[in-house]
């Protein structure tokens, strides 16, 4: 697994620098054959997927040693990683669909791996199986429409034939593909499978799914929309941008009020993919408006954010796996106080949380800064649509940034600091060296991307510029300098300045403070005796103000039951309080849909009674109907 990941990462990096290669194996599979064609865009996704697979693979070694992974998982994991790396390398529609389906099936096996332990796993697996296959059908239909005028199914032919596609057919192909790929990227309203399936899988599988697999949804949108169909009209991309902004805000809002650590991370994936889609949408919109330089900048921001998201999401999911292994719980309300017992995991989660909350000097700050620069400089573009969409896009990103801070302060502060809220958290022990090595490797990647994004940025800018036919939008080694618009940011100097500032404050205090010794003392308990963990704020109480503020969107369900004493109604025996935060989109959209399907199924059952005579009758009536149709139309 590690070797496969390493191979993928190296192949990706080589491809990113411009060395394209292709392989055709026409006889390997019937009908389509297999055709691989790696260009720089594929290279980015290969490199990211491979790097995530390396970290997750090392972690998996530790997980297997602790007996966490069953033989089924051990067998399916390499297949999953392989298919993950083959999807971006696919060079024809048939190959892409084969690899896509292989990826869906292997990941499904991994998601349902622990179905004996928890009943929720089976339900999550069902959701995932249905959604991923509906998505697959959508991608297949969209790609077939797109390939209509092409000679064969290879991407080269589709690209050449796209000019002969009618605008209506191209729009249909794009929208259907967007739905299919978007559901893989967790785009609202096609996201409900994601916060179910990602948390229920073993943690290193969650990391692979959340950090590498969802990227392929974005890959599909970019490949089909920008590369194969060559851009398309502005409204396609406004749709992408708006859906991305809605996903970002909705995802992070659900994460901000959630208390299940892995589910929270799953919703955060929806948020980050939303941000990437905002960037991709902005890129398409600028390109359609003729502003190629800005389009390149937006796409560069999208690719960098994909990379940083992969890095920090791997750290966060693997750390969550380490915590789950040590405490058996992923409920933040039952964690806390892990700092002294799991120092390495805590430090790594801290690095990941800093990156994810988009605060400087974190990794995601740089990519979000690039995205904001693209949106801000796009306002002078002609037309009313950018003038309406761009400020709202900035506002959505800003709200996302604020809520992300709240989410990760909660996840880190409640989950790892303070005092343990349960016996399991109090008895936690640090995970083994292999698991920690996987986590540490990903954390190092986070730090590297935060300090030196300029190492990868010029290459990403080259790739993005190549796709939208523009010069690279970003240059610079120490500082990131935008090309064509004014804007400069130096993550390296920012880190240096923060370090110098910290050192001077420490020096100043040493110089001025009269006494350097510190006294250990009891916490202030208002004179009421020792504090207990039950007096601490929990994740639920921490998020309560936000939940109240956004109650109009979240529609929480609260229930207070008061039971009285038998003797008198004035004496209360027990009060029970329940609060549930159902996913509102799921409740409003999918419940009626499922209900309608069930009703339809019941109607259908009335037609099929099991009587052979009746079935022969159906055949006869249908045949007569078809003949009558033939008579009328001819």
């Amino acid at each position: 697994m590690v070797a496969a990941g390493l191979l993928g990462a190296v192949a990706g990096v080589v491809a990113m620098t411009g060395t394209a290669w292709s392989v055709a194996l026409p006889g390997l599979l019937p009908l389509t054959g297999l055709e691989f064609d790696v260009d720089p865009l594929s290279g980015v996704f290969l490199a990211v997927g491979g790097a995530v697979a390396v970290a997750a693979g090392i972690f998996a070694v530790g997980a297997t040693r602790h007996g966490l992974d069953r033989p089924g998982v051990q067998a399916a994991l390499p297949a999953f990683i392989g298919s993950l790396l083959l999807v971006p390398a696919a060079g024809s529609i048939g190959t892409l669909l084969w690899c896509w389906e292989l990826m869906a099936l292997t990941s499904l096996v991994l998601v349902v791996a622990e179905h004996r332990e928890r009943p929720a796993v089976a339900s999550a697996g069902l959701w995932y199986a249905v959604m991923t296959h509906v998505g697959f059908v959508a991608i297949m239909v969209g790609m077939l429409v797109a390939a209509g005028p092409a000679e064969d199914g290879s991407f080269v032919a589709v690209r050449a034939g796209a000019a002969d596609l009618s605008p209506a057919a191209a729009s249909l192909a794009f929208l259907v593909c967007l739905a299919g790929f978007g559901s893989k990227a967790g785009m609202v309203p096609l996201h409900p499978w994601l916060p179910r399936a990602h948390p229920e899988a073993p943690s290193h599988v969650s990391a692979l799914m959340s950090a590498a697999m969802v990227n392929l949804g974005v890959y599909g949108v970019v490949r089909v929309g920008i590369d194969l169909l060559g851009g398309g009209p502005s409204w396609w991309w406004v749709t992408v941008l708006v859906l991305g902004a809605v996903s970002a805000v909705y995802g992070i809002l659900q994460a901000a009020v959630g208390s299940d650590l892995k589910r929270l991370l799953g919703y955060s994936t929806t948020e980050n993919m939303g941000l990437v889609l905002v960037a991709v949408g902005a890129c398409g919109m600028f390109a359609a408006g003729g502003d190629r330089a800005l389009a390149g900048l937006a796409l560069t921001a999208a690719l960098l954010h994909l990379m940083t998201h992969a890095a920090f999401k791997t750290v966060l999911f693997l750390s969550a796996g380490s915590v789950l292994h040590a405490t058996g719980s992923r409920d933040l309300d039952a964690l806390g106080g892990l700092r002294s017992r799991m120092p390495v995991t805590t430090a790594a989660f801290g690095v990941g949380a800093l990156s994810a909350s988009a605060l400087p000097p974190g990794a995601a700050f740089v990519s979000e800064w690039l995205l904001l620069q693209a949106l801000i400089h796009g306002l002078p573009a002609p037309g009313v649509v950018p003038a309406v969409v761009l400020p709202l896009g900035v506002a959505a990103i800003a709200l996302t940034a604020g809520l992300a801070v709240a989410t990760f302060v909660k996840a880190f502060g409640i989950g790892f600091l303070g005092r343990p809220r349960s016996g399991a958290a109090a008895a936690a022990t640090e995970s083994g060296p292999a698991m920690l090595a996987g986590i540490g490797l990903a954390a190092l990647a986070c730090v590297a991307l935060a300090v030196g994004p300029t190492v990868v940025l010029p290459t990403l800018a080259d790739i993005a510029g190549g796709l939208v036919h523009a010069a690279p939008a970003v240059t610079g080694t120490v500082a990131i300098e935008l090309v064509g618009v004014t804007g400069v940011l130096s993550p390296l100097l920012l880190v240096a300045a923060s370090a110098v500032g910290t050192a001077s404050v420490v020096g100043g205090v040493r110089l001025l403070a009269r006494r350097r010794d510190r006294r250990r003392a009891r916490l202030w308990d208002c004179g009421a005796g020792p504090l207990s963990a039950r007096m601490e704020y929990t994740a639920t109480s921490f998020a309560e103000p936000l939940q109240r503020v956004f109650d109009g969107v979240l529609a929480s369900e609260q229930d207070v039951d008061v039971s009285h004493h038998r003797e008198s109604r004035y004496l209360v025996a027990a009060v029970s309080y329940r609060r549930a935060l159902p996913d509102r989109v799921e409740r409003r959209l999918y419940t009626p849909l499922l209900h309608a399907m069930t009703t339809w199924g019941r109607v259908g059952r009335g037609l099929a009674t099991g009587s052979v005579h009746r079935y022969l009758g159906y055949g006869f009536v249908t045949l007569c109907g078809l003949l009558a149709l033939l008579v009328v139309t001819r």
Partner: protein
Amino acid sequence: MTALGVVGGVLQAAVVVGGAPLLLGLMRQVRARLEGRAGPGIGQPWRDLRKLLRKQSITPRGTTEVFRVAPVLLVAMTLVVAVVAPLVTTASAVPAVADLFVVVALLAHATVVIALAGLDSGTAFGGMGASREVTVLALVEPTALVAIFALSVPAGSTSLPAIVGTVLDDPQRLISPTSLLAAVALATVIVAETGRLPVDNPSTHLELTMIHEAMVLEYAGPDLALVELGSAMRLSVYLGLFTSLFVPWGIATTATPLALGVGVAALVVKVGVAGAVLAALEVFLAKLRLFRVPELLAGSFLLALLAVTTAYVLG
């Protein structure tokens, strides 16, 4: 990195660190006089800091490094902003960091470390303060970023020196609707971020209404001195940024001693006046209920959005 920027950076750091407690003292004195009290004089915050520096820091049992490094990071992040932002001069010591987004995010980072310290203490007050502070932060961020967007449209850049330079070149921009709306929105942001009335009451010690004070209850001695100094510096830096963006006159554009002297004097006077006005207004305000604060912030967000729209419509 120019000579003007480096000299300005050093001067700004000195003025902000030295002057922030005095600004706090001035605001308390104004408030005391308006309420008919004598007041302790504007040097009292410095006397408090001196007293705290003589005492001993406390490490409460069960807390981690987060609790210990948070005050240092609070001051350090604010210090970085004080050095790089154009307060005394238009040039920045580190131009590649003097971006309005970076500055706002660094100040938000300072809030976050204190919130984490509150959670690290593991007391009910610490958690309560952290929860409220982070809620306010999450709601303030959109307003701040959209207001920045509005201000950066005329300058064509989010770089602070560029924005201040644009205003100096064309002062008429200041009375444009964009600038006025953005000013009101940013003023609300500053009030919320620095924990002033009506969002938070800086002088309260009543548990149920506290936001900022609840998070730092466990600090003592030099740690507490850093927290107090950091909070005062935040207020000064925010007011300094506000005056540089909307009333930039007097700011040094050359590295001559006279220009720098005028720059320092102008900064002190402008921030002093802004602080006094803020303190005078606070006398007439009561603290809002916590769950009314989002309404105030939503209002300011709307103003910021209107500012962007007018920037587009009026060109």
